[in-house]
């Protein structure tokens, strides 16, 4: 894409937000941030101010119409924002505006010059470059003459541009309108919409750039998060599918499987799906992958959503894979969580934070399907897309185990399979009192790979793929398999 000249922008310092807006808010222009009660408008606006003061050397002014000013200060104190200190250091000026309709009589013509005077005074006091008006719509409750208010707000927003300040104006979401008073009519440069939904008892916050004049911006809804570290928008990276596609290869840890993957294993930085019904050996394959990586001295991170690390270590010892030394050596780290413990957004943020802290080259998520119980399938797909994007950007090779129910085995995995570079299907069947395991590579982008279905066994020295002459189904028949592992099982047992 040819680079186009974009408007100058002002960084917010909010993780993820500056990426999706390609640089932050329009400099010296007002931006409207709207959303329902509790959607995080005020926090976003305050973060913009505090980051400006602390990170970018841009002092700010907060003109707030909120009634509970002390409450707000203590709310943000929990995020490490010390407003009183910033005020004392002349990095922030706060003016609490109160309008009591009951004590005001209106007679004749007036304007809101008093508001302009206060704002100008506050801006001058600290040399502000950033201004937040939160929530100016409160004026409509305090004053009766809507006509004057509207023309004065119009004047205010254009006046702000002349002041050389970058401003956020918050607005309460209205019926069928972005804001109750239709402020979006007056602020035409940038409009951000925040949303807070609860679905199946899981809360999700979303952010959308509704409008950004003269700039490219992501138009999707992005999940965002408010946690102890403040506000962050996801994804952090990779909106344009611009990750590198390294040619380096990485072993699956199973020699025979590497052989089926063009003889060299997976691509470095690719994403591998391992799907199969319960007990087909997904975790074992993952353990091989981790073990081999640790033997090469690579750092590995393993997210567990079903078993505890101790269970996994014990179970893998039974097939001769001892991962414990790698844990002790600090090469392998487990991160176990119950999927139901948080909403998807929190899982996503937690995973990103753990990845950022540990900096692995290999990551295993087992099983990724357990996360699917937490949200709707669209949400899960969105979240997985973001995780995968993030891992790819960091050039981390990821193996995702997917537990499929016995029937319609592919269906549940379908929603995420398109995101995968390599898809390995595991299946088993009992024939004549014997457990038979099969494995095949359903797809592997960008490499020649085997179409064969191979039988494998789990021995006390690990997973061993049997020679193709062992009990091989005819390759021509395997070609028909990809509808699903139930078909595979049929052939496998033949």
């Amino acid at each position: 894409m040819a680079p186009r000249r974009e408007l100058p922008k002002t960084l917010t310092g909010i993780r993820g937000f500056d990426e999706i807006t390609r640089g932050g808010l329009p400099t010296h222009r007002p931006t409207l941030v709207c959303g329902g009660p509790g959607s995080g408008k005020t926090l976003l606006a305050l973060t913009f101010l505090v980051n400006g003061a602390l990170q970018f050397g841009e002092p700010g002014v907060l003109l707030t119409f909120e009634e509970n000013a002390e409450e707000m200060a203590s709310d943000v104190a929990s995020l490490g924002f010390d407003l009183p200190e910033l005020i004392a250091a002349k990095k922030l000026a706060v003016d609490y505006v109160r309008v009591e309709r009951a004590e005001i009589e209106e007679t004749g013509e007036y304007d809101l010059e008093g508001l302009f005077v206060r704002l100008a005074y506050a801006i001058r006091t600290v040399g502000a470059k950033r201004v937040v008006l939160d929530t100016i719509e409160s004026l409509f409750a305090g004053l009766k003459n809507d006509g004057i208010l509207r023309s004065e707000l119009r004047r205010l927003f254009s006046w702000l541009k002349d002041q050389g300040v970058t401003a956020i104006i918050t607005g309460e979401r209205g019926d069928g309108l972005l804001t109750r008073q239709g402020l979006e009519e007056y602020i035409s440069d940038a409009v951000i919409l925040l949303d807070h939904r609860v679905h199946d008892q899981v809360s999700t916050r979303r952010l959308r750039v509704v409008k950004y004049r003269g700039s490219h911006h992501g138009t999707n809804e992005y999940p965002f998060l408010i946690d102890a570290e403040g506000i962050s928008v996801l994804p952090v990276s990779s909106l344009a599918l611009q990750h590198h596609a390294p040619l380096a290869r990485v072993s699956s840890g199973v020699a025979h499987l590497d052989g089926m993957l063009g003889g060299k294993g997976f691509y470095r930085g690719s994403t591998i799906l391992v799907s199969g019904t319960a007990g087909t050996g997904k975790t074992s394959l993952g353990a091989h992958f981790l073990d081999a990586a640790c033997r090469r001295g690579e750092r590995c991170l393993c997210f567990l959503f079903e078993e505890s690390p101790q269970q996994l270590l014990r179970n893998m010892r039974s097939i001769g894979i001892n991962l414990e030394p790698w844990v002790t050596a600090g090469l392998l780290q487990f991160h176990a969580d119950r999927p139901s413990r948080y909403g998807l957004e929190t899982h996503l943020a937690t995973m990103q934070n753990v990845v950022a802290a540990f900096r692995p080259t290999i990551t295993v998520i087992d099983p990724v399907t357990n996360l699917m119980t937490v949200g709707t399938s669209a949400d899960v797909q969105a979240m997985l897309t973001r995780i995968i994007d993030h891992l790819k950007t960091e050039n981390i090779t990821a193996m995702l185990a997917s537990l499929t129910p016995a029937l319609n085995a592919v269906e549940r995995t379908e929603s995420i399979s398109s995101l995968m570079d390599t898809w390995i299907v595991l299946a088993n069947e009992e024939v004549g009192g014997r457990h038979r395991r099969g494995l095949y590579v359903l797809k592997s982008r960008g490499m020649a790979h085997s179409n064969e279905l191979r039988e494998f066994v789990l021995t006390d020295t690990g997973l061993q793929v049997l020679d193709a002459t062992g009990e091989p189904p005819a390759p021509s028949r395997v070609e028909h398999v990809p509808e699903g592992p139930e078909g595979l099982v049929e052939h496998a047992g033949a």
Partner: protein
Amino acid sequence: MPELEPATGIAAAAGQTYELRLYVAGQTPKSILALANLRQICEEHLQGRYEIEVIDLMENPQLAQGDQILALPTLVRRLPEPIKKIIGDLSNTERVLVGLDLRVRT
């Protein structure tokens, strides 16, 4: 137009002094008109027991915050208490009198 009765409030009856502040921003037509209207009303209804202080926020912007001034002109009745605010150019005498508790609202 509703009929207005003379107020029988304590303030009016006690003949208490009115302490009034008129906030303006520079010599605008609205502020000049507001001051003229205010003087006339006071002379007619509060003769000898009022004080008017004009505060120009162009000169003293820091004073806007204390009385929570947004609209201009704003007339603030500081005494007698409670504090009352009347915004606008004070061209509607009836409403000004109501605002100052010199007439009861009907």
